[in-house]
């Protein structure tokens, strides 16, 4: 069976609640069958609206949403066959775990034996066998979340939507649930559309991530590409940590450019700059800059240590570099570590292909 690369398709979708402001602008998004795609963005960026339109609780103002080639904009939610996991679990508090899971099957008039079998399977999938007769209130937050996941999957939906499902859990539980959901996805191969504002969650779980801002998808790519190769300043800033220099392009040749800062010139990858004189923001990941580099690097400058914070596996060093007092370095902690002292002048170097000249902030 070949996978449909356009299993879910947002085709030029606009959404406005008040007729004045577009919350979602001209959204074009294809989701492949069996894919785990995450919509990531700050609150108010339109990601939850997209999810609600897909679930059928909101209708697009313009454009169409297609599921497996069929337009679904006019199909009510209960006929879409899309499973959904809600932020606050939305388990039915007056039903047992079994009844919660049986609900989608009962409304589909599935035979009793079949229901028992499917509920059993779904519960063992989230390792909650034996919890059938419990009420949701008797379960911990993590268990409730697992029941919610099982309930969204028990009727074999084509697509499962998850709306910040882990938002209410504590950090450790959230991390273990991330892996669990990822494994469930891998084992049953269902298409998952996941909404979160937590970037580490998105990076851990997804095949692809759509970064939303201001009603638009800023970048749609795999987690690694998103982190390594952000296409604009917003994505660079939103995903992971980021050091920036604002300057002006002084020279450009091929994919390399020189950016003139107030007191220096740095070499960088030209990503969204085209010509000399353009304003730009250069982005550099903290772990790509090295202290006292031993190898040859094409950007080496010296700066003064402003702050040293011990983080266990690494040390964060804040340096005043090229009149940017917020330049962050991540130094792995090892026995051969240099002594880092406040006020010390150190040399810092990075390769030009790690620095990306993006649109100005």
């Amino acid at each position, binding site marked *: 069976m070949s996978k449909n690369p356009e299993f879910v398709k947002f085709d030029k979708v606009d959404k406005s609640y008040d007729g004045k402001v577009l919350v979602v602008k001209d959204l074009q998004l294809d989701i492949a069958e069996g894919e785990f795609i995450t919509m990531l963005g700050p609150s108010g960026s339109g990601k939850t609206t997209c999810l609600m339109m897909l*679930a*059928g*609780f909101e209708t697009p103002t313009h454009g169409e949403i297609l599921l497996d080639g069929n337009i679904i904009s006019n199909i*009510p*939610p*209960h006929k*879409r*066959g*899309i*499973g*959904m996991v*809600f*932020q*606050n679990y*939305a*388990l*039915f*508090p*007056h039903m047992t775990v079994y009844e919660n899971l049986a*609900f*989608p099957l009962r*409304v*589909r008039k599935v035979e009793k034996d079949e229901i028992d079998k499917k509920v059993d399977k779904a519960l063992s999938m989230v390792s909650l066998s034996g919890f059938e007769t419990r009420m949701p209130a008797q379960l911990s937050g993590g268990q409730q979340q697992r029941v919610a996941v099982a*309930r*969204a999957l028990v*009727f074999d939906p084509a697509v499962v*939507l998850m709306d910040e499902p882990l938002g209410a859990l504590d950090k450790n539980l959230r991390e273990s649930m991330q892996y669990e959901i990822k494994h469930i996805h891998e084992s049953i191969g269902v298409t998952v559309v996941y909404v979160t504002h937590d970037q580490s969650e998105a990076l851990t779980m997804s095949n692809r991530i759509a970064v939303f801002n201001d009603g638009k998808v800023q970048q749609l790519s795999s987690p690694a590409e998103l982190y390594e190769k952000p296409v604009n300043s917003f994505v660079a800033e939103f995903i992971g940590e980021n050091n920036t220099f604002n300057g002006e392009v002084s020279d450009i040749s091929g994919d390399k450019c020189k950016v003139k800062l107030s007191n220096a010139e740095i070499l960088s990858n030209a990503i969204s700059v085209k010509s000399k004189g353009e304003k730009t923001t250069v982005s550099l990941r903290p772990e790509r800059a090295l202290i006292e580099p031993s190898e040859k690097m094409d950007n080496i400058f010296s700066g003064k240590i402003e702050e040293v914070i011990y983080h266990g596996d690494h040390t964060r060093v804040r340096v005043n570099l090229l009149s940017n007092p917020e330049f962050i370095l991540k130094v792995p902690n090892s026995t051969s570590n240099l002594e880092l002292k406040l006020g010390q002048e150190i040399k810092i170097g990075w390769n030009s292909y790690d620095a990306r000249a993006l649109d100005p902030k």
Partner: protein
Amino acid sequence: MSSETKQILTTDGIPLEVSLKKAEKKNKIKAFLLVAPLLLFLFITYVFPIGEMFTRSVDDKMITNMLPKTFKAMEKWDGKELPPEDVFTGFYLDYKVLIENQTQGKLGQRLNKEKNGFNSITKKLMRQIKRNKIDESQSIKEQIMKVHKRWRDVEYWQAIKRTAPPYTMAKYLKGMDMYFAADGSIAQVDEDRRIHRILWLRTLEIALFVTVFCFLMGYPIAHLLATLPMKYSNLLMICVLLPFWTSLLVRTASWMILLQQQGVVNDFFVMIGLVGDDNRPEMMYNKVGTYVAMTQILLPFMVLPLYSVMKTISPSLMRAGKSLGGTPFVAFWKVYFPLTIPGIGAGCLLVFILAIGYYITPALVGGASGTLISNQIAYHMKTTLDWSFASAMGLMLLSGVLVIYWIYNKLVGVDNIKLG
């Protein structure tokens, strides 16, 4: 490890345990003193009056105290034939005392209630005694029997015997249109004189229908209140609560203005041509008026508990129901509705209990059909001054409510009630 635990002492050498208990006791006394005024208030205004009502409703001591010698002598009488001489003597002596104290009239009235015709024969006997026509050296039985032929009727003496116990359930029987027959068995009042049973049924019917109407109208309002954005829901809430701020009489009076035959509603119906001018429907002085006015007045008591329960139901539950494949109706019926049952229970119980004891509104807008049990209670309190009967009916109403509460508890469970 040693199993001994060293006693922990406070700095002044008192065991910590004792010291803690002492401090706790102080707090408990303080807490009790804080609620004491309320407890006292409840006792004085609630427990005590109900107890008083109960004793009053079964109290029949007056006549027991009036005829001590008679009842003493009657103990040996089997009640089948005319009583022996000593009963007549006892009655004569008791009655003489009453005449001296000028309380003989009360006895006549009391006995007359037990059996018609007593009033005149006791008065006749009184006149004979006052004129000293009774010769105490002769047989008193013979002389009393000569006063009136009814004194020779055994039924009248049986009636006196029935009043002997200091307590009686007669008032309760009367409330159910029953009475103690001459032979002491319980009998039904003649069919054309059964008024109380009709009233009980009517009271139940009106309370039941008002509850149903309140539920049907209150449920959607409460749902709207719980789901609307704040600024609209506040306004709607004020509209719901507005009746609370207006006097009950004013509201009832405005319903009278609206519903009467020449009233606003009828004028409107005529204006839009729904009914002819000469054919205006009667919406007042019948059950329609009672239902309309009482439903409006009791609606907030349904809306508020429903609202407070609905407010806690997350809107994502309905969404979950729909996304899992339930039609909007299934999602409502299987998910939303069961979650509102605690509110429904609280609201219905509240409205029903209030409606069952309602009395001003039905009396004003209900016309002849507006007489309910509470009106009857008020009537006996104020007009006939038969307080013991009023108390008996009040207690019957109270026990009826308790029975309903018990049934409700069996069906839904009182723990499930949510008032807010």
